């Protein structure tokens, strides 16, 4: 989230698209209700299904799964056409006025630089035109034909309401009603909040879905303001925290990225990460990249990381592919190239696409270690459960180790929520049986491996042998000690330019501004710096005092970075420093400094007239309506069909799905066609369950006991399926037999004049737990991910449905 859960109450319009907040985030949804009750907010839901969120919405519009970009580009066309944009914000705070270099273009579904052989782009033309001074050229009047704004206008011009209706199946009147409501927030004192989740990420164009909405928000001037923002509702408790500390295979803590094998030296690595301002006077956090990475290396390797050995740069693995994401990992496993797997708090047999492939891949492992508080399907992948998990255990040689772990209530620690708040929690009960904390298990694995390397040596044991492990209890380091390690400390006495001591040796840091690139400071995760300072555990703070009652509560827990509650909050004030919305200010220029209820996301004493942009993570200081080379599909979002789609791409039939998404050869063969599988399948959660955990709890099992799919009354009639009858739902990868919920909440949509049916399937059932046994929706889903993040396309694929006999119990 750029903003916070509580801040949603400040919104005037709430758009829930690409998510189902009431269903998946019922507790956070209270802030939507709050906005409706006390801010007269209007709630808009755009979703293939009439969801629980839609049940309390003021306006609902249906959309065919996988066509969000067409819809949002249509919204942008509407806003530009009606001139419903916040002009001063767009002109001053976005890159609308910057000139794109000649050679950039878009034709027949492809941007300039496409190589059909590589299925990738040469992105060199996706950039600005630079002047002789090295800074980007601009036209503040927005007249230049190649300025970002005019190119955007031209790009989205194809997305007329008629085209949106033909592609998305959304009736024009509904689409225009949504546009009208969204447009009301172009007023400087009005805000729209975007609440989204996996309904946007789980597509082969997931990142571009979100980018398209971010652009809508920029045109409306809704980023950085109270009640605005792009608000990703994270799906697991602490998944935000896991992402922050380096969940993705190409990342290290604090979103620092792993080196590539083309960067053999630290100097090479830093060259591409160095900050070069594109406009005069811009500043950026990333100017400090060197301080962050050196402090991380000092945290990991202590005295061994020195300037002489480039801060132990050689210890870092170098990527030979863009990412070792989970899809690639299972592909390699299926090919027999990964033969050991430690599966920590993760149930891939239920949660990754094409269950048949996942099961086969696990069966090729030599060993599988499962760390989980609950019995998982993955740990029992080898068991035969008939159609629900067909297996011949006699043919599987994988040795499986199940290590029971504690759950959150059985340990101290912090959880980072969607609002980026690190909230400390305290152990409530002892763990049952032999369960141990994940920390204890990982420490045990590490210590034994280190002992083996120490004894037997190896090709390159140094990173393991030299890892800092100076914990009070090396067998099970305390969560408090680990938190202080992430916060960081001075390693020696640190002095400023005048020679005055600013930090004594060992002193905990107040924040990342104190980090240095000379090896005198250490921090395990720079964005978490400030979470545990000399003042104590900031994450354990529970002061709910809320100045101006705007939902910031700055003394409640700790928000990264530096306890800032709303990112880009400099953009909440106009170029001269006055709040766009005087009723809900965040920070403003008081003549000598930025002051207000939030920590400024800006130099606290940088004068407005200095012209430093509010988007200080970027080299131009302006938010990017044109993404330069940062997105693999192109600098503007374009509609591409899902990999399995019932219709051709109406905008450019020759370029159907995302041209740069990665598909492994075997998986391409597993895609189905609309002739065999004429209906659109989509998957989702139900509020009664949390993924595959709560089916182990009796109350949750009572509340949603059994697997089912949702189909429209029209399709049910066509297929002769009555309410609650058994059906067989199949894709080219497998089938599920379960009951049908015939519902009015799904309706066929007219796509280019042809009725398209969507079938929905909740994900929660498997072969363990207290609920009735089920197949799991991932039997059906395709093994392809988003081109930028490799999040699998769970939200749009092709299926067929037919009546089935009642299964024999």
């Amino acid at each position, binding site marked *: 989230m750029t903003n916070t859960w509580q801040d949603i109450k400040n919104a005037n319009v709430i758009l829930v698209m690409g998510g189902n907040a*009431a269903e998946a985030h019922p507790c956070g949804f209270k802030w939507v209700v709050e906005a409706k*009750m006390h801010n007269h907010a209007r709630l808009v839901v755009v979703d293939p299904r009439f969801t*629980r969120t839609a049940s*309390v919405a003021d306006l609902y519009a249906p959309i065919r799964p996988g066509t969000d970009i067409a819809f949002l580009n249509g919204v942008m066309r509407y806003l530009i056409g009606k001139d419903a944009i916040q002009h001063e914000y767009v002109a001053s705070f976005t890159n609308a006025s910057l000139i794109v270099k000649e050679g950039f273009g878009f034709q027949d579904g492809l941007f300039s630089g496409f190589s059909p052989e590589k299925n990738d782009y040469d992105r060199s033309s996706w950039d600005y035109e630079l002047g002789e001074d090295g800074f980007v050229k601009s036209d503040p009047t927005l007249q230049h034909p190649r300025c970002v704004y005019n190119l955007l206008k031209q790009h989205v011009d194809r997305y007329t309401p008629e085209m949106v209706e033909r592609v998305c199946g959304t009736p024009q009147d509904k689409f225009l009603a949504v546009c009208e409501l969204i447009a009301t927030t172009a007023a400087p004192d009005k805000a729209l909040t975007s609440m989204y989740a996996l309904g946007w990420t789980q597509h082969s164009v997931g990142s571009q879905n979100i980018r398209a909405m971010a652009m809508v928000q920029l045109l409306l001037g809704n980023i950085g303001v109270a009640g605005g923002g792009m608000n990703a509702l994270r799906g697991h408790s602490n998944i935000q925290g896991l992402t922050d500390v380096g969940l993705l295979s190409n990342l290290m803590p604090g979103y620092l990225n792993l080196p590539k094998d083309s960067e053999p030296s630290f100097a090479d690595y830093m060259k591409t990460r160095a900050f070069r301002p594109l406009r005069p006077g811009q500043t950026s956090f990333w100017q400090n990249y060197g301080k962050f990475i050196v402090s991380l290396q000092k945290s990991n390797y202590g005295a061994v990381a020195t300037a002489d050995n480039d801060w132990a740069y050689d210890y870092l693995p170098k990527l030979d592919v863009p990412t070792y994401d989970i899809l690639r990992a299972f592909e390699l496993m299926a090919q027999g190239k990964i033969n050991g797997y430690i599966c920590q708090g993760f149930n891939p047999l239920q949660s990754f696409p094409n269950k048949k492939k996942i099961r086969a891949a696990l069966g090729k492992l030599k060993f599988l270690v499962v760390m989980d508080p609950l019995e998982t399907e993955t740990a029992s992948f080898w068991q035969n459960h008939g159609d629900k998990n067909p297996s011949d255990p006699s043919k599987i040689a994988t040795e499986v180790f199940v290590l029971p772990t504690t759950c959150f209530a059985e340990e101290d620690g912090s959880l980072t929520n969607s609002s980026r708040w690190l909230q400390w929690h305290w152990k409530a009960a002892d763990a049952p049986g032999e369960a141990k904390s994940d920390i204890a298990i990982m420490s045990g694995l590490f210590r034994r491996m280190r002992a083996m390397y120490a004894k037997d040596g190896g090709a390159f044991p140094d990173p393991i042998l030299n890892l800092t492990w100076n914990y009070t209890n090396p067998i099970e380091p305390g969560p408090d000690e680990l938190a202080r390690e992430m916060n960081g400390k001075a390693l020696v006495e640190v002095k400023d330019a005048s020679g005055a001591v600013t930090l004594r040796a060992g002193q905990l840091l107040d924040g990342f501004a104190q980090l240095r690139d000379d090896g005198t400071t250490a921090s395990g995760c720079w964005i978490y710096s400030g979470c545990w300072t000399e003042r104590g555990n900031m994450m354990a703070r529970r002061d709910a005092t809320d100045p101006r009652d705007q939902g910031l509560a700055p003394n409640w827990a700790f928000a990264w970075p530096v306890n800032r509650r709303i990112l880009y909050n400099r953009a909440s004030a106009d170029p001269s420093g006055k709040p766009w919305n005087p009723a809900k200010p965040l920070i403003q220029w008081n003549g000598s400094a930025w002051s207000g209820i939030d920590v400024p996301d800006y130099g606290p004493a940088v004068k407005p007239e200095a012209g430093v942009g509010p988007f200080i993570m970027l080299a131009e200081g302006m938010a990017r309506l044109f993404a330069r080379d940062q997105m693999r599909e192109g600098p503007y979002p374009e509609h591409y069909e899902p990999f399995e789609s019932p219709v051709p791409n109406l905008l450019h039939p020759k370029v159907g799905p995302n041209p740069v998404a990665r598909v492994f050869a075997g998986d391409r063969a597993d895609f189905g066609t609309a002739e065999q599988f004429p209906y659109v399948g989509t998957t989702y959660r139900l509020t009664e369950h949390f993924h595959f955990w709560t089916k182990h709890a009796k109350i949750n099992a*009572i509340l949603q*006991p059994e697997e089912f799919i949702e189909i429209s009354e029209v399709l049910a009639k066509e297929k002769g399926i009555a309410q609650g009858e058994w059906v067989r739902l199949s894709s080219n990868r497998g089938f599920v037999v379960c009951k049908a*919920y015939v519902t009015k*909440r799904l309706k066929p949509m007219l796509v280019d004049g042809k009725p398209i049916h969507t079938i929905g399937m909740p994900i929660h059932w498997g072969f363990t737990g207290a609920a009735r046994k089920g197949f799991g929706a991932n039997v059906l889903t395709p093994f392809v991910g988003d081109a930028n993040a490799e999040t699998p396309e769970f939200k749009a694929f092709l299926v067929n449905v037919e009546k089935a006999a009642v299964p024999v119990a």
Partner: protein
Amino acid sequence: MADFQSLDVLRRSASTETTPQIRAHPEVAKLIDVSRCIGCKACQAACMEWNDLRDDVGYFEGSYNNPGDLDPSTWTLMRFTEWEDPKGNLEWLIRKDGCMHCAEPGCLEACPSPGAIVQYANGIVDFISENCIGCGYCVKGCPFNIPRISQADHKAYKCTLCSDRVAVGMEPACVKACPTGAILFGTKSDMTAWAGERVEDLKSRGFDEAGLYDPAGVGGTHVMYVLHHADTPSIYAGLPDQPSISPVVQAWKGVMKPIAMAGLAFTAVVGFVHWMVAGPNEVQPEDEARGRDVLNEKQP
């Protein structure tokens, strides 16, 4: 919390007298704002937790209603209705079903067992299991079809409005668990006033018929709904449009009671008059003889 916690008894089933009260108590009410409810079933889970109830794990039965109906282990239940207005716009009406705690409770009225059903001074209608004889008259007496008879112990069960929590100053478990504040608890007058604001908001969003459900036919209820379509409560999974106590129960405990009493009195009076006029019915010597014969015949 105000002084809600009275367990002073206002009415008692099958009893004509109740203890006189030395205290005055406000009436309580639970307000269920259907327009804020997202159907998450946290209330159902909280009810199961607090009251320690566990139904069997059931089956999918063609809707999100789970379990399929109220039963002795399910005292509150979310009922989901897919409803299309005359223009064809879909609404998904989600109503938390359970005891309405009527001011004039049909169950209490119908109950023949003294003290099996009581109404407290704060308005809560509670079943006292030890006095329940499992006759099921309360089921017939309830205009909302709420009580259920357990096959295990042959006693009637329903929502207690968490009388045990309210008695110690806490709100009902469902109210505490509701994440969107769709279930509120307080004095009936506060809840009625708050409902008025909610109705205004709904009207501003185009729900012209929004209103409060507090049906007069049962003297008002201590569980009330804010409905978007208060003109047609029955679209919310059969919420009665105009509930009232069944005429059979009314007749039985109303008109029939004095008539029956009069019948009893008439019988007594006639008997007495007959005795006065005809004298007592005495055994005659012939009767004695016939009796002896019968006895003798029976001997072996």
